C-alpha cells in the first residue's frame, strides 16, 4: 500500500512539475484565449469596416458619448475593485474580499442598467438594428459585450457565495481575470461606436 502511494505521489509530482502553473489558472487562460479570438475577431471586423466606411462617422454622432463615458468609468472602477479583491484574498482578509467583489458586481449591474437606458433612448429615436449597417454592428457588438458583463457579474456573485464555504484565492483571481478581459474589450468598443 505504501509503495502504491509513493508511486502515485511520484507521478503527481512529475505531472505538476511538467506544467508549473496551477491547473485552474491555466484552464481559465485557455478559456480566455477562445474568448479573445471570438470577441476580438468580431470587434476587429467592425474596426476594419469603420476605417474604410465613410458613413460610419455620421451614424456614430447619434450615440451618446456622455452615457458611454460614464459606463467606461463604471467598468474601469469594477476592474479596480476586482483586482483589490484579489489583493486582499492573497493576504487572507476575506471580509474586504467580499466587499470588493460586491462592489465589482454592483459595477456590472450598473453598467447593464445604464446600457438599457441608452438602448431605450436610441430605439425611441428610431435607431433600431435595421436602421443601417452601423446600427447592426452597434447592437450586435454592444449586446454581445453586455451579455459578457452580465456573465462576469454573475460569476463574481457566484464566487462571493462560494467563498462562504471555501476560501480560494484562485477563484477570486480567475473571476477578476474574466472581468478585466471584458473591460479590455470595452476599451475598443467605446472609441469605435462613440468617439470616431
Amino acid at each position, binding site marked *: 500500500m505504501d509503495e502504491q502511494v509513493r508511486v502515485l505521489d511520484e507521478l503527481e509530482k512529475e505531472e505538476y512539475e511538467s506544467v508549473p502553473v496551477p491547473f485552474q489558472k491555466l484552464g481559465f487562460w485557455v478559456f480566455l*484565449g477562445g474568448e*479573445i479570438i471570438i470577441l*476580438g475577431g468580431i470587434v*476587429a471586423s467592425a474596426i*476594419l469596416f469603420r*476605417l474604410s466606411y465613410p458613413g460610419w462617422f455620421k451614424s456614430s454622432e447619434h450615440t451618446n458619448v456622455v452615457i458611454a463615458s460614464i459606463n467606461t468609468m463604471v467598468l474601469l472602477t469594477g*476592474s479596480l475593485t476586482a483586482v483589490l479583491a484579489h489583493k486582499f484574498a492573497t493576504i487572507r482578509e476575506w471580509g474586504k474580499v467580499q466587499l470588493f467583489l460586491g462592489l465589482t458586481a454592483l459595477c456590472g449591474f450598473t453598467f447593464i442598467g445604464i446600457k438599457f437606458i441608452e438602448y431605450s433612448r436610441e430605439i425611441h429615436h428610431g435607431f433600431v438594428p435595421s436602421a443601417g449597417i452601423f446600427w447592426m454592428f452597434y447592437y450586435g457588438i454592444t449586446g454581445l459585450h453586455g451579455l459578457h458583463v452580465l456573465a462576469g457579474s454573475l460569476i463574481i456573485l457566484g464566487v462571493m457565495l462560494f467563498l462562504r464555504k471555501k476560501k480560494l484565492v484562485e477563484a477570486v483571481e480567475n473571476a477578476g481575470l474574466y472581468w478585466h478581459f471584458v473591460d479590455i474589450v470595452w476599451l*475598443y468598443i467605446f*472609441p469605435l461606436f462613440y468617439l*470616431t
Partner: protein
Amino acid sequence: MKVGERYGIEARNHEHHHPPYVGIYFILVFLTLASILISQIVHRQKAPAYVFSISTVKALLIALFYMHLKYEGRWVLAFAIIPLIIFALVLFALMPDVVPYQKM
C-alpha cells in the same frame, strides 16, 4: 493538501505582486478623458489612429498590471499570446473584405 503544496511548488507560483492599483486606475481614467478630448478636437480622419492607440495603451496597462501578465511565467504568457497571434491573423485575413470600400 494540493499536489503543488506537497512539493512546495505552489508557494513559488503564488508569489503575488501588487503594483499600485489605484495609481494605475487614475492613469486609465486620465487616458479615457484624453481620448474623449482628442476625438472632439482632432480631425475625424486622424482621430481613430489616436484613440485606438490610447485604447491599446490602456489595454496593455490592464493586461500587464491588473491581469498580472507582467509577473506571470512563460506558460500563462504563451496561453495569452497565442490567441493574440491568431487574432492578428484573423485581422489580416479580414482586410481584403474591407479594402474595396475605400476604392468605391
